[in-house]
């Protein structure tokens, strides 16, 4: 198992208590309502946030261990992280952004080509669309030849059509990746489309029934059922 994590962290509204693992080449989608701790978990994997206790082991290497006081800094974890918000460097054009931490600068042009933004290589981020920026962020993350890819709602700020296109692109590319991918979303359709495995997280804990509860219609008794049968009554309420 490439990634194993067992952590606890006290947050403002709830306590996180999570266990997960992910194999190389697999995409684990973390799903759940906003504010449930998904992004916090991803940030812990990146080394940007610290658990209160627990262990994070990647490929036999301990990244975090509270009992042994081990904490590998983000710089040494060599992961690719695509943030929800746009985090391209505004002073650099798309090519230089993608090449920012590239292992082999020659690969950058190919990556830009692969994501369909080669013709925009000379443009600064504020001169391209949100979708093109996130494509470039993916290039930036992949050019580092990451050992794991973390995608935190990377397409959530994009319009439906762009989002669909990027999802399909990611799904087709996923087969070529030999590292674990963790993808955060609160969109069930996106999760079902992309995931090899789905892990619902609610209030900092795994809640395997969450998806089922969310997509199952309301029970045929009680107020919702009455409202459906009697629309005027529903309006009156």
């Amino acid at each position: 198992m490439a990634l194993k994590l067992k952590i606890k962290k006290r947050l403002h509204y709830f306590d996180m208590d999570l266990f997960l693992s992910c194999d190389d080449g697999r995409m684990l989608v973390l799903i759940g309502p906003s504010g449930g701790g998904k992004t916090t978990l991803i940030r812990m994997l990146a080394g940007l946030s610290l658990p209160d206790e627990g262990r994070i082991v990647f490929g036999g290497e301990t990244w975090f261990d509270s009992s042994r006081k081990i904490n590998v800094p983000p710089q040494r974890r060599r992961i690719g992280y695509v943030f929800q918000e746009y985090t391209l460097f505004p002073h650099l054009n798309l090519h230089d952004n993608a090449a920012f931490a590239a292992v082999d600068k020659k690969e950058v042009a190919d990556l830009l080509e692969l994501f369909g933004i080669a013709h925009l290589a000379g443009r600064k981020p504020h001169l391209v669309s949100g979708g093109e920026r996130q494509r470039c962020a993916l290039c930036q993350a992949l050019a580092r030849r990451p050992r794991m890819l973390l995608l935190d709602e990377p397409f959530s700020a994009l319009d439906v059509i762009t989002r669909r296109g990027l999802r399909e692109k990611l799904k087709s590319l996923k087969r070529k990746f030999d590292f674990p991918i963790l993808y955060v979303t609160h969109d069930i359709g996106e999760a079902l489309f992309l995931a090899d495995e789905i892990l619902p997280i609610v209030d900092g804990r795994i809640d395997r029934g969450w998806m089922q509860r969310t997509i199952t219609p309301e029970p045929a008794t009680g107020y919702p059922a009455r409202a459906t049968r009697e629309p005027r009554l529903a309006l009156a309420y």
Partner: protein
Amino acid sequence: MDYLSLYVTLKLAMATTVILLIIAAPIAYALAYLRFPGKSLFEALIYLPIALPPTVMGFYLILAMGPKGAVGRAWGALTGGSLLFTFLGIAVASVLYSIPFAVQPMKAAFLKIDPRLLENASVLGLSRLAAFVRVVLPNSASGIIAAAILVFLHSIGAFGVLIMVGGSVPGVTKVASIAVYEAVEAMDYRTAGLMSLCFIPISYAFLLLVNRLNGDSKHGA
């Protein structure tokens, strides 16, 4: 017209600007991003020259740089010379006097940078120093230029602290502001007027530039 004092003024302003850009950047970075004990005390100390009368600051610098002061004694032991009444002495005084004008705009510019850019830089493998050079500095250009201009102008206008530490040695420590003062003392209003006139267009043009830079950064250009 005392061209020599104008030359000393410009030399001092340039030296102060260059030295302060190098010194102030890490101080501003520390104040913007780092947590350390006594940070608020340190920050207040950095901004103290704004609040102190220049002559008071000059007085303490005389004590420190004089033959009985710690800095003066160390300098004397190293070089056999004195810091008082030398160009180096007024350069040190000018740097200390202008340090808030370099640190404050730089700190403000650093704080404007989205912290997520720095997180992205660290995930991409950059050390704090590398992120400072490759991300913070290029995205704070307007703040750094504004700091340079403010320091330059403030150094041109310095008077009290310089006359205390450097006196008025022609070609060495006698800057234009001192030359204007001495010309007025000698009732030579023509020289004082001509020299004073030199300051206005230079200072005004540079301040317009600072405003332009601030306006640019506000509009995200």
